[in-house]
């Protein structure tokens, strides 16, 4: 079987720097300020990227910000040409680098379905045929004749995704569009994507959301500094990515913005013992170092986990183990281990300390912790616990009559 996409030695160069940023003014061209200084700073966003995609493949592309993911998608969707190399395509590509491209606030919902659909490459007859389905999926049928500018952002998003979900190209390219919307709608989108993936369509998907990638893609490509670092099964790629991410090591706490600080006490470093991302109900191990410059009575160190909307979920303090802990000047290291019963998601970790004479230090958002779903069963209904916290429950059901 011939690959549906052959990506051969793709490289992309950008010029960076220069006084006017992106675009030039006429004056710059007519009267170049300094010919010798004419900025020649080159930046290779992609270097020598090659891989093959076969029909039915679902490929997730991961990498840190600036690794070249979006540039690769832009080249694949023909928005920008590569500087070197070539791509052979053997199918119709539809790219979704954004949901609702071309939406116009002055037009009604119905008109926008047609406009957006045709921008995404649907024929008018195709839109006619799928119109009811699209409206159904979006759940905005009541407002079809209302101007889009009166829609809530959530409704706009639903409508946009509904159109996008009904594209039927051979190759679908998606850039992090699912990272928006409420949880219920995200689940709906995810379901639709899985459906598309299972129907034998080829998908290339970029996301920072590892659980999403895991559930949609069979294969993963890890990009680093514009080249491919790893290409293989999705979970292997994710592991590789996490390893690279954690290799960055110790978090420099000293220079972080602090809400409370004192001369006597300073947290000097913080790191996770193994990795920074954990699976549900996995032990989280951390090493915290602090420096004491005077005598402190009843030192009490604490950490907390809060969710993205800053709701405090967990707070633990050392005073449980060390009720009245007096310390002399010196450097100390704490080994801390917790097993939070949290659902998958991203959480913020904050650190603080106080003593008998008052607060010593408080540093919000020292680190982000990503808790991944247990990979074996992603579907929610298979889990025996749902909600913010994972709880083990013991059931006993008896028939009494």
């Amino acid at each position: 079987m011939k690959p549906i996409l052959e990506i051969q030695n793709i490289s992309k160069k950008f010029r960076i720097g220069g006084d006017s940023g992106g675009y030039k003014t006429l004056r710059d061209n007519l009267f170049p300020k300094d010919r010798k200084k004419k900025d020649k700073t080159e930046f290779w966003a992609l270097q020598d990227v090659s891989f093959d995609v076969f029909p039915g493949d679902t490929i997730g592309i991961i990498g840190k910000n600036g690794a070249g993911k979006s540039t690769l998608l832009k080249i694949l969707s023909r928005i920008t040409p590569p500087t070197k190399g070539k791509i052979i395509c053997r199918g119709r590509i539809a790219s979704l680098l954004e949901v609702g491209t071309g939406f116009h606030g002055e037009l009604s919902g119905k008109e926008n379905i047609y406009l957006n659909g045709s921008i995404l490459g649907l024929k008018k007859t195709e839109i006619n045929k799928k119109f009811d389905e699209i409206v159904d999926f979006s759940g905005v049928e009541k407002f079809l004749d209302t101007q889009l500018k009166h829609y809530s952002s959530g409704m706009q998003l639903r409508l946009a995704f509904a159109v996008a979900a009904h594209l039927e190209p051979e190759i679908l390219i998606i850039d992090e569009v699912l990272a928006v919307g409420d949880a219920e709608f995200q689940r709906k989108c995810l379901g639709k994507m899985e459906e598309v993936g299972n129907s034998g369509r080829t998908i290339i998907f970029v996301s920072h959301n590892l659980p999403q990638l895991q559930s949609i893609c069979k294969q993963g490509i890890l990009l680093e500094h514009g080249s491919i670092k790893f290409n293989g099964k999705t979970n292997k790629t994710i592991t590789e990515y996490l390893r690279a991410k954690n290799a960055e090591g110790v978090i420099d706490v000293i220079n972080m913005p602090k809400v409370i600080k004192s001369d006597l006490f300073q947290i000097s470093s913080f790191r996770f013992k193994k990795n920074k991302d954990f699976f549900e109900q996995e032990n989280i191990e951390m090493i915290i170092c602090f420096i004491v410059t005077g005598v402190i009575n009843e030192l009490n160190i604490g950490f907390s986990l809060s969710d993205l909307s800053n709701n405090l979920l967990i707070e633990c303090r050392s005073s449980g183990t060390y009720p009245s802990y007096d310390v002399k000047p010196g450097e100390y290291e704490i080994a801390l281990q917790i097993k939070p019963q949290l659902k998958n998601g991203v959480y913020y970790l904050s650190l603080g300390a106080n003593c008998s004479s008052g607060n010593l230090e408080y540093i919000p958002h020292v680190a982000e912790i990503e808790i991944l779903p247990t990979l074996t069963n992603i579907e929610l209904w298979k889990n025996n616990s749902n909600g913010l916290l994972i709880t083990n429950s013991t059931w006993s059901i008896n028939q009494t009559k």
Partner: protein
Amino acid sequence: MEYEIKPQKGFSLNFREIIQYSELFYFFTWRDIKVKYKQALLGFLWAILQPLFTMLIFTFFFGNLLGVPSDGIPYPIFAFSGLLMWNVFSSGLSSAGNSMVSNAHIIKKIYFPRLIIPMSSVLVAVFDFFMSFIVFIGLLIYFQMDVDILKMCLFIPASLLLTIICTFGMGSFLAALNVKYRDFRYIIPFMIQSLMFLTPVIYPVSIIKYQWAKYIIAANPMAGAVDLARAAIINKPIQTDLMLISVISAFLFLFIGLFYFRRTEYYFADIA
């Protein structure tokens, strides 16, 4: 279906691709027309009122107060026949010139032949033409003009075609330049204003004394287009040499515009 994505060089019109995307072309035009008149109380009526008011003002100042000659036809008809084409040019050029920048958000997110955008901008102006053409017919009847229908059917479409060629050529050139040099946002309105003086909208070419000046004006393709439109209603032979200059110049603009646009369009998404 098999195609290649590779570094872009050179120049090709690739009309086949534009035809493939003809529906999108239609949707863009439809969107622009709809949006243009959407929140206006009088809606499409503005396409009629605008040239009508301009004509009235011109008639008052140039026709009545200044006594500008009008080749033997009533001044309102004279001015309106010129405005008919001039408005296509001025509104088409200004929207086409800004079209790539104002659609930058789409260009950065999805691929389609970029030429569709300035093309549909020009087409919106052509839509306005048909609206004001109705008024023109009304005026002809009101002033009881003796019109040769055959001449009208020949010269008006020819004039419109010349206008479209010229507007599209210059429009796509300016659109591409505007992406690279935002200065053109300010240059375009000024340019249109200056060109109006070089176009015999308010005055007839016949009052120009110097022959060389006539040639300069003829190099402006819109002069030819306006002359053609008037030839439909005035019993006066067309000056072939001047017309030839205008036609050649229009095609020159078209070629330069298309060439420059096609050469630079690949990088629009990077710099827009």
